[in-house]
């Protein structure tokens, strides 16, 4: 792609906005349409676009397999961890109302963190699925 300057410059211009839009969808999710899943997919799309234009090697350097794995693990832990905090605070598992002084604020905090966990997980999983399928050598292991 070295000889396609328009694509390269266009991509570099687009990526920050894609990431920003993903964050908007993520953090606006509890008020309007959006949420963790959609945000994660959009966030991953930015990296997939980067990989398409700048090549797999650069994309892997930007988002190594080890980092993706940790983000994936952290996402699930954040989701389930919010549930456990609810338990420790005296409610049932995933009861957000006890997370704050007023139940409404508690519900806000709870769904915000849970969606963040979903977003992290979906982003890392989507990127990993793309990276695995994009490897030319099927026996190449995704490690690092």
């Amino acid at each position: 792609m070295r000889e396609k300057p328009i694509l390269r410059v266009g991509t570099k211009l687009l990526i920050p906005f894609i990431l920003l839009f993903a964050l908007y969808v993520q953090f606006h999710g509890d008020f309007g349409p959006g949420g963790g899943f959609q945000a994660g997919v959009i966030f991953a799309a930015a990296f997939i676009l980067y990989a398409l234009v700048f090549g797999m090697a650069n994309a892997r350097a930007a988002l190594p397999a080890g980092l993706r794995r940790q983000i994936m693990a952290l996402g699930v832990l954040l989701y389930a961890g919010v549930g456990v905090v609810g338990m420790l605070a005296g409610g049932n598992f995933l009861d957000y109302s006890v997370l704050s002084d007023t139940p409404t604020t508690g519900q806000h905090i709870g769904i915000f963190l849970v969606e963040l966990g979903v977003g992290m997980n979906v982003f890392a999983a989507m990127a990993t699925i793309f990276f695995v399928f994009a490897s030319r050598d099927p026996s190449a292991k995704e490690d690092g």
Partner: protein
Amino acid sequence: MTLHDHLPALAVVVPLMAAPVIVALRRPTAAWAVAVAVSWACLAISGQLLQSVLANGPFSYLLGGWAAPWGIEYRVDPVDAFVLVIVSAIAAVVSLYAKTSVAKEIDPDRQYLFYAMYVLCLCGLLGMAITGDAFNVFVFLEISSLSTYVLVALGRDRRALTAAFRYLVLGTVGATFYVIGIGLAYMMTGTLNMADMAERLPAVAHTSTVRAALAFLVVGIGLKMAAFPLHLWLPNAYAHAPSVATAFLAGTATKVSVYVLLRIVLGVFGGTGLLTALPLMELLMAMALAGMFVGSAVAIWQPDLKRALAYSSVAQIGYILLGIAFLSETGLAAAIVHLFNHAIMKTALFLALGAIVFRLGSARIEDIAGIGRRMPLTMAAVLVAGLSLIGVPLTVGFVSKWYLVEAAIGAGLWPVAVAILLSSLLAVAYVWRIVEAAWFAKPSDKALAATEAPTALIVPTWAMAGAAVWFGVDATGTMGVARAAAAALLKGVAP
């Protein structure tokens, strides 16, 4: 709220959270240690739940504090608790065995994946058993199924990949049928809570939508439990999966699917009268009888012992289905106790086969020739569990078949009682094949080089084989729980 009140949620949350921890740790030994700790913690939780449900009756846990028909309810009654104990006990014993066998069969940099999938699969299976929400069952079904596909695909050779893919296609068809069935039932009742759905279904039972829902559910769950003739994914998946995965799945995955069948068909659709109005039980009985004979007969001709035992599982699922099809308390109790009994003996057999694979690198009949003298402890475990598979007295297999025959006679179905005994003869044939090869054949080259399996493999194998004798000699405990569970299930079934 005390810790005790949270146990229903913890049974699912503990293994669920362990999976990402294992992924983050990555080191094989650390991953294994977490898997062992989680499996035993789940066993402790399940034991506690069974104890409280037997002492104080069924109880509920409301997820997120949302009230029952709207929120997700975890409902613990004797049937759930019994299945929870079976699954977590198998997982606990198999987890001890896993380290040595997995180290031999799976690349070091992929072992953490195996353990992550192992606890995730445990989470899904326990979740299916404990939840009282029909859609939540689907979610956990997918969690356990997806992790199972990965477990199978981690097998030693490339055939594991095709086996996993075939299982993925058929398993997805099964899960889709399940969710279509639940969707149709939801359309007519407006609820996903099982207890609520069971109350609302009789009013709309005459509609073809509800009948279609029942049909989709039976076929979907039938696929997941590998009921004949929907069993085609099972032999390859069991034969090519890593030994530990086979032992774990053979003891748990199909059993939990049988539980879902009991819960949905008897528990939710029981009150509609459709079970007797439609020829459903006759159909199940025909499937069960065909499975008993075809599964056992095919098992006799398999050159690979893992495949042979996989086909034997198809036959054993037939016995369980037969017990359900009688729709009587004895039949149902026999089916439920056979869930437990078959889980024990099949896990013992697959663990022993895993020990053989550990030493020989294969479980083909020509390779195990003469292995009886080289690996006496392992083969003795195979013999004990094999006798139990046949149904010899003093083993758990005898208990199951005794009550099955009693139920058949109680229902006035003499030919079925005879069929149960005849199909046991086929089991004699495939077990005898193993015995003949192991003790009476000229030793193969591989067998001559083999020595007894390591203690870390022998002890869990014998724990299971010993349990097959223990619960065969004294079945009062297991039969007591099974009878209580059967009575609880039949209460909701309209005559």
